[in-house]
């Protein structure tokens, strides 16, 4: 990761001009989306050929309404969230302790980290054949795919965070007579918490991204399933794009939720030392 910037923290980032009116401030971000929707609509109204198959914004809104009416909206959203939760939580429970151990025992990390780096670039989709072989077709395979996709970034984040703990803090802990278990609990864990939270947020984003791939394994609910099925079963591109929009919106919500967690409690202390909080 790129190193944090020097102590003068005035950058373009925090010298933004503030419009006087709060209403104006709220409108600017919305304007971007409004422009996008407008361009989308215009492009489709004048374009020709296979392009016409794509739905116009209004059609997408109606499609979402249709889903809500039929009761499918909630069903699909809950199904996807359900799978993501199981896979992600499993990855947290396995990956973070593993990463901490790998970070603490330098030689252990050296032995295993390169192997993780080989497994990491393998797309979750490429694991599908093995997943089906081991777990059959269905939910467990899907959850397994999500688990794998979240596991590697979480483990590597935890490992790097532990490796990055300042030696003075570790030595101070040892000086006060702490043995390894206490050192991990009272020094390492609090020290890595800010980085860990950022990693948790990014990995949740990955898990949510991968749910689409995971739901290609012959499940019959979920937003990813919706996208694939809507096209296969009748070229319902309005439902396809509706699914995409829903995925995007829920993705933002999940990310915002994790950011809120990052900011909570006395965790504010951490961000002066980890000022490269990722986008």
């Amino acid at each position, binding site marked *: 990761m790129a190193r944090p910037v020097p102590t003068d923290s005035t950058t373009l980032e925090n010298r933004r001009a503030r419009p006087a009116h709060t209403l104006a401030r709220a409108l600017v971000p919305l304007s971007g989306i409004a422009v996008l929707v407008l361009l989308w609509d215009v492009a489709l109204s004048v374009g020709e050929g296979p392009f016409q198959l794509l739905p116009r914004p209004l059609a997408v809104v109606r499609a979402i309404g249709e889903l809500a009416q039929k009761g499918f909206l909630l069903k699909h959203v809950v199904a996807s969230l359900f799978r993501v939760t199981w896979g992600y939580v499993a990855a947290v429970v396995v990956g973070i302790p593993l990463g901490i151990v790998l970070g603490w025992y330098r030689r252990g990390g050296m032995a295993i980290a390169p192997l993780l780096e080989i497994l990491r670039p393998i797309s979750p989709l490429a694991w599908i054949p093995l997943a089906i072989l081991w777990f059959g077709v269905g939910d467990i395979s899907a959850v397994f795919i999500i688990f794998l996709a979240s596991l590697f970034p979480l483990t590597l984040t935890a490992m790097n965070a532990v490796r990055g703990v*300042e030696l*003075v*803090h570790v*030595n*101070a802990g*040892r*000086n*006060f*007579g702490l043995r390894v278990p206490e050192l991990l609990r*009272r*020094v390492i864990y*609090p*020290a890595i*918490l800010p980085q860990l939270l950022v990693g948790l947020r990014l990995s949740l984003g990955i898990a949510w991204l991968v749910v689409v791939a995971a739901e290609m394994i012959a499940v019959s609910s979920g937003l990813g399933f919706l996208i694939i099925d809507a096209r296969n079963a009748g070229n319902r591109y309005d439902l396809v794009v509706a699914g995409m929009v829903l995925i995007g919106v829920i993705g933002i919500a999940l990310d915002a939720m994790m950011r809120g967690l990052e900011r909570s409690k*006395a965790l*504010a*202390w*951490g961000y*002066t*030392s980890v000022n490269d909080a990722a986008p």
Partner: protein
Amino acid sequence: MTDKTAVKVRIQDLSKAFHTNGHEIRVLEDIDLEVRNGELVCILGPSGCGKSTLLNIVGGFLPASSGEVTIDGLPVREPDPRRIFVFQERGVFPWLTVEGNIGFGISDLPPKEKAARIAHYVRLVGLEGFESAYPQELSGGMKQRVEVARALAVNPDVLYLDEPFGALDSITRLVMRSELLRIWEAERKTILFVTHDIEESCQLADRIVVLSARPASIRRVVEVDMPHPRDLSSPRYLALRDSILEEIGLAHRI
């Protein structure tokens, strides 16, 4: 009452070499030193000469290549709460408040006693009112005080200070030096203090151990027989300082 003449820390024939990528870097050569109970000894030398390494070995954070360090006759093998190392203010834990940091080493005490002790040391280092502050809200000098308070709270026999005031501005440094002496007079710990600042060693130490450049060996040990408070304009002080400057081979005029 502590026996003033008893030897607290004994360093014998200490040598240290690092091995990196096939090269041997000799850092310390045949260091012999005795520190008596309640003394404030300064180890003086230029940056990079190995004085921090020496202190780390004495503190038990690094093994020696040869020779031995004993405290009260027992060999030093690992860090111990009876001998606390004060790093520069970076050693303060950023995730704990001032109170949390000071109480770090005494978490086993019953809550009332722990609270009383924390309050005592908060007062001793002059940080009343900041008990619930986090380190990021404090200045460098204040963080240094937290670290000293944290070290003292466990009632160690020996304190090791590794250029503790190096990150502070020169005015704060002067203030912190007199604060350290005030605390030392109150608690009379044995202190081993590493610095590259000649004035600092002259102002604080009972004895100044002048180290050579790397590989470091002891050039000279200077006994400073001046009571505190020391008059920094007195001829005696200036003579002391000049003799150190000459020992290190530096000019008197810039």
